[in-house]
Structures are given as C-alpha cells and as structure tokens.
C-alpha cells in the first residue's frame, strides 16, 4: 500500500484546566489515504473535535498537543523528540506556525465546521468570504478568485450564484450555508478536508442532500476526508473506514462494512444498537446506559468498563491497547477490548461485574497497558500512569 496522505501516531492533546489535566485525546493513531473518507465516530466529549483540530495545530488555550506525531505527505505537522537535556522538544523538521498557516491550513487541509449558522461572518458578503479564502490559498488575483467563487457556488448547487455572491449569510438558509462552507473547502483545492459534524445542525432531508453532494464532489475532486460525526447512519452512508472513539481513545478501527458486520468492541456494538438500522428489525432501540465519564479522571482499566454490558473483573484492571485482530480489504481491523483472543489476560476466567461492582473501580489511573507482547499484562498489577510516559501503542 502506498504511503498514506495523513498519518497520526499516538497523538495526545490535553487541556490544562484549574480542576486538572483533561486528556481529551489520549494516544490515537490512524491513517488517511488518498481519496478516502475516514470516519471519526463517538459520543459528545469523546475527543473527536479536539483530535480533528489537532491535525491542523489549531487547539485553543488551555489545550495543547503534548505528544505523538502527525505526518502529512512526508511533512511533519507535529513531532517531538528528546533533547540533550532530556526534555521533549519540537523536532527541527516540524513545520513552524507560519509554515502551517501559509502552506497547510486551507491550501492542503481545509475544514467544514459543524454549525453553518455560526461559521460565516455575518458582516461580510458570502462571496467576499469565499473570495478571500480562495485568493489566499490559491494565489489567484481578486478577479479570478471571484470567478472561481461563483463557479464553486454553482458547483455546490446554489441557484443564481452570481447574485447570491453579493448576499450576506443571514439571507441564506442553514442548508445553503453549509453548501457555501463546502464550496469554501473545495475551492481552496486541498487534498484533505476535515468535516467536523457538518450535517449535525441540519434537518434530515437537507442532511441527505448534503451527503449526496459530498459523495458526488468527492468522486470528482478525489479529496480525502476526515469525517467527524456521532451518527453511525452517516458513517454507513459515506465513510470508507471508521475510527470509533471513546474518552480520548480509538477503541475500534476498521473498514466500514467490517465494522458493521463484524463488530468487535462492545462500545461499537452499543452505538450500533442504539440506532435504527434497515437491516435489522428490533422492537426497541437499546440506548447506551449512563453518560461518558469526564476525561479528567478516566476510569481505570478499560475506560468503557463502567458502562460495558460485557465487563468483567479484569476490565477494571487492564487497559487494553488497540491491537490488530483481523484484516479486511487490505486494511487492519483494530480493537481495544480484552474479550478478543489476541489479548492474553484470561477474560474468560475473570468474574463478570455485577451492577454495583463499579464502586470498586479505581479512577484516576489509566491502569495497566495490556497487549499481546506486554509482559505487564500477565502480572495484572496496576501501575499509575505517568503524565506523558504512556506506553507506546505499537
């Protein structure tokens, strides 16, 4: 397989708040290949948006990327190394802030935000905003950028684009504004578009239209997407591969069909059971019990165990790595659940957790890292996790 367009390895983004360090993104790894739509799925607070903003190095204060590596077309967007003094420092080949701004943001990686109502500046014309970004990221003259803006507005299905060009955002409906934002992203001709829940704020019929539009445009422009969503239905419709996130971690990663039909992680299964599916008939949908805990003090062991129907005693102690369990269509199927045989931690011999047992759950530590090659897994002992000394994921 060719070198991926984007490679994210063990990315960690934390927020340093007064009440403690929030480990919003806690060591995720994934790849995006040319022309692919890769989903980033999970509940609110799973760290999807922070992860996607980290890719452009646009995490806002008090957040900071504290570890991992982001490589885009061979360029290091983020990378640390150990300096001679033992402190971590940014690697020399890591792009500077101005290089990120001038070469990456907009030009190579563009974004579509969740809320089309808030994403356009109310005091400038829609066309003017579009033109500005095109001018900036494609080195076109003002006039050429204007023509291009109008062409793109037509391309995303806005009627009378030349007239609408002069109008202000409040004169557009929500769906039309989201089309404008898509036009904005495509018009800069990036190779990768990060779409952060772009259809969540829209009603279902408009959502369908927008998804069709993206599908169609993606075929023609061959742009790759990182598609952030909480909606498994959207995932099924447009994604090629999916990363399921829970509390800052990727708990399952697989091509979309594999994920739907050979679901491995109980969280993914719970997500799928909580939505209606045309291929299954059920009397009642099965919501996931409880709410996701705070990323400030994640549960010990597997972070999902307090809500997991299959949790056993071992799950409170052992923190599973995301390991490859299968391959499908040439891509790995990775999962982070000790139920699977590749985790040699004696899940079957462990006592199932009864409701109420969660009281024993230790919070604060990440627990022991478990992996096929990890010798700590067999000892079953808890080790407090040091802030940035987490075990490498592979």
């Amino acid at each position, binding site marked *: 397989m060719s070198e991926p367009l984007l490679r994210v390895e063990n990315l960690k983004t934390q927020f340093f708040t007064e009440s403690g360090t929030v480990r919003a993104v806690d060591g995720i790894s994934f790849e995006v290949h040319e022309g692919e739509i890769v989903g980033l799925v999970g509940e609110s607070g799973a760290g999807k948006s922070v992860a996607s903003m980290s890719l452009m190095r646009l995490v806002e204060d008090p957040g900071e990327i504290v570890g991992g590596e982001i490589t885009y077309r061979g360029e290091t967007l983020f990378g640390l190394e150990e300096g001679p003094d033992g402190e971590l420092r940014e690697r020399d080949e890591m792009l500077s802030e101005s290089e990120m701004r001038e070469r990456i*943001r*907009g030009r190579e990686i563009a974004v579509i935000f969740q809320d089309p109502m808030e994403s*356009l500046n*109310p005091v400038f014309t829609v066309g003017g905003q579009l033109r500005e970004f095109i001018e*900036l990221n494609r080195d076109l003259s003002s006039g050429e950028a204007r023509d291009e803006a109008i062409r793109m507005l037509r391309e995303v299905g806005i009627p009378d684009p030349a007239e609408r060009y002069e109008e202000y955002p*409040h004169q557009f409906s929500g769906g039309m504004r989201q089309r404008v934002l898509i036009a904005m992203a495509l018009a800069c001709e990036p190779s990768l578009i990060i779409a952060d829940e772009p259809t969540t704020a829209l009603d279902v019929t408009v959502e369908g239209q927008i998804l069709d539009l993206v599908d169609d445009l993606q075929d023609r422009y061959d742009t790759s997407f990182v598609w952030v969503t909480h909606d498994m239905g959207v995932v099924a419709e447009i994604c090629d591969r999916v990363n399921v996130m829970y509390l800052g971690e990727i708990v399952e990663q697989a091509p979309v069909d594999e994920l739907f039909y050979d679901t491995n992680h109980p969280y993914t299964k719970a997500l799928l059971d909580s939505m209606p599916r045309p291929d299954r008939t059920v009397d009642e949908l099965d919501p996931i019990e409880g709410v996701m805990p705070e990323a400030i003090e994640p549960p010990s062991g597997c972070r999902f165990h307090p809500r997991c129907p299959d949790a056993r005693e071992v799950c409170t102690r052992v923190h599973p790595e995301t390991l490859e369990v299968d391959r499908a269509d040439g891509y790995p199927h990775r999962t982070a659940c000790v139920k699977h045989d590749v985790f040699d931690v004696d899940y079957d011999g462990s006592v199932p957790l009864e409701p109420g047992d969660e009281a024993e759950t230790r919070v604060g530590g990440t627990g022991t890292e478990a992996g096929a090659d990890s010798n700590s897994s067999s000892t079953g002992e808890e080790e407090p996790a040091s802030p940035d000394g987490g075990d490498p994921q592979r």
Partner: protein
Amino acid sequence: MGLLKYTIYRLLQAIPVLIGISIITFLLANLAPGDPVRLMLQGQQADEELVRTIEQRYGLDQPLHVRYWNYMTGLVQGDLGYSIHRDRPVSELMLERAGPTLLLVLSAYVFAIVTAIPLGIIAAKRRNEPTDHISRIVALIGVSTPSFWIGIMLIIIFAVQLGVLPSAGLVYPWQPPEAAGHDGYLEHWIESIRHLILPMIALGTLQMATLMRVERTQMIESLQEEYVKLARAYGVPERTILRKHAFRSAQLPIITIIGLNLSTALGGAVLIETVFAINGMGRLFIEAIQQLDYQLIMGVTMVLGAIFVIGVVITDISYAYIDPRVTYGERE
C-alpha cells in the same frame, strides 16, 4: 429610500422626547427659588414698580402654563426666546456658543476613539497578560475619576508646572487668524490645537476608558466566534483576523456607547468649559442658571437635547452600515 424614511421616522419620534425635556426643564427652572428680575436688578434698590414693569414686559406676571404655552408657540416658529439678563435673542447666543462646545466634544470623541479602540484590541489579543492588566487598570482609573479633577491636574502639570500648554480659552480655527492676533493660518491652527489638547484629554478620558473596556470585551467575544476559527483554519494571518474578521462585528456596541455617552460628554463639557474658561454652551448654561435667565436655560437645554437626539439617530443609522442584518424596519 429606506434610509430617508427611517431618518424622518426617527426624527419624528424625537419630538415627544424634546417636548418632555422642555416640560421638565421649564418646571425645574421656574420652581427654583429666586426671582430673575430682582436678581437682574441686584445692587439697585428694587423698586416694586420697576420690577412689575419688567415682569409685564417679559410676560413673567402670567401663570406658568400660559408662559409655557407662549414659549412653545415661539419655539415651533423657530424663536428660541430672549435672554432678559443679556438683552439678546437666545438664538444669537447659541450661534456664538455652540461652536466651541461642539469643537470640544467632537475632539474629545476623536481622542477617545483613536486611543480606546487600538488599546482595547491589544488588551483583548493579549488577554490576561501584563499589557491587558495595565490597560484595565488605566481604564478603571479613567472611568472612576471625575473629568473636572483630571482637568485641574492637567492644568497644574502642563500649564503651571511645565508651562508647555495654555490652560484657558480656545482659539477657534474657523475664525480668521487676524481676529486672534496670529500672523498666518499655520500659527493660528497650531495655537488652536495647543489650546484644545488639555480640555480634550480632560473630557475624553472618561469616554476613552468606557470605550476601551467595551472594545476589549467585544473583541474577546468576537475572537471566539466560529467564523474567526474558520478564518484561522484557512490560513488567514492573525493581523487580518484582528483587523477584519473579528473587528467589524465587535464595533456595534461601541457605536451604541458612543451615541448614548453623548449625554455624558455634553454634561461633562459644562464642567470642562468652566475649568478651562471656554466660552461654550456649558458655561453659558451655568451662568443662565445663576441668573435664573429662564428662556436662556430653556434654549441651551433644548439645543443640547436636540444635539443628543440627532447623535442617537446617527448612531442607529450607522448600525445598518456596519451590520447588514439591521434593516430600517422594512421587510424583504
């Protein structure tokens, strides 16, 4: 067309406001203790016959509501009344005195705007850094210090101690240089500016401090908007974001404050004109009150009221210029 209609509509709305101002001022002035005629004849033995004659001549012997009615009928015909103490028509005095006051208030506003907006933006950008803390302390002091005290301090420092700037009066740039005893326009205008600096700062500090605080808050809010994040994600340089993307939508409250603070500024001008011995409307107003010159009090109040109302209307109109979502009350 919408703009003209809207302006006329807003000016018509101002009429009840001005009538309200006139009633309150008329009552307050007339209820104040003292007799204007006796005050005027001060020093002379008040001859009852003379007092009555003068009262009759100016209609002061009539009941209050009749006097008010007479005054208002004159006003709608463009007659601002007659100053009994100065023996001149009020309109003539207004024409003489409005210039210095407007010059003072406008220059104070210019001073406040050109200092407050950049300072507010810098404070917002460097939020919670030393620059921000210093500017907030300065703003707090500016908001809480009376303008006349600032004026007196400025006089003590720059006029008395350092002797670099004049402390009294203004030189009117619209007058010919010869009238002020200057050789040419250059000298004349330099002198105008030199005379204006201290009163301008004294009057403008409060406005500056208020505007700066609002500008800072608005910019902080504006910098957190999704569209600012979007601009960053598309590689727009931070300078452009500050000056364009975040700036424009943050200015609406500033305009509101400028419009509403016109009343504070006009009120402050009364004090500042006294401190700096400027012959503007403010000083005229104080003298009119001391002399119980009823029609002059009314005249000054009505003119100041009208200036305020016009200022607010201009504010409302400039809203729509900045924010396309604001329309002049018409539907599309």
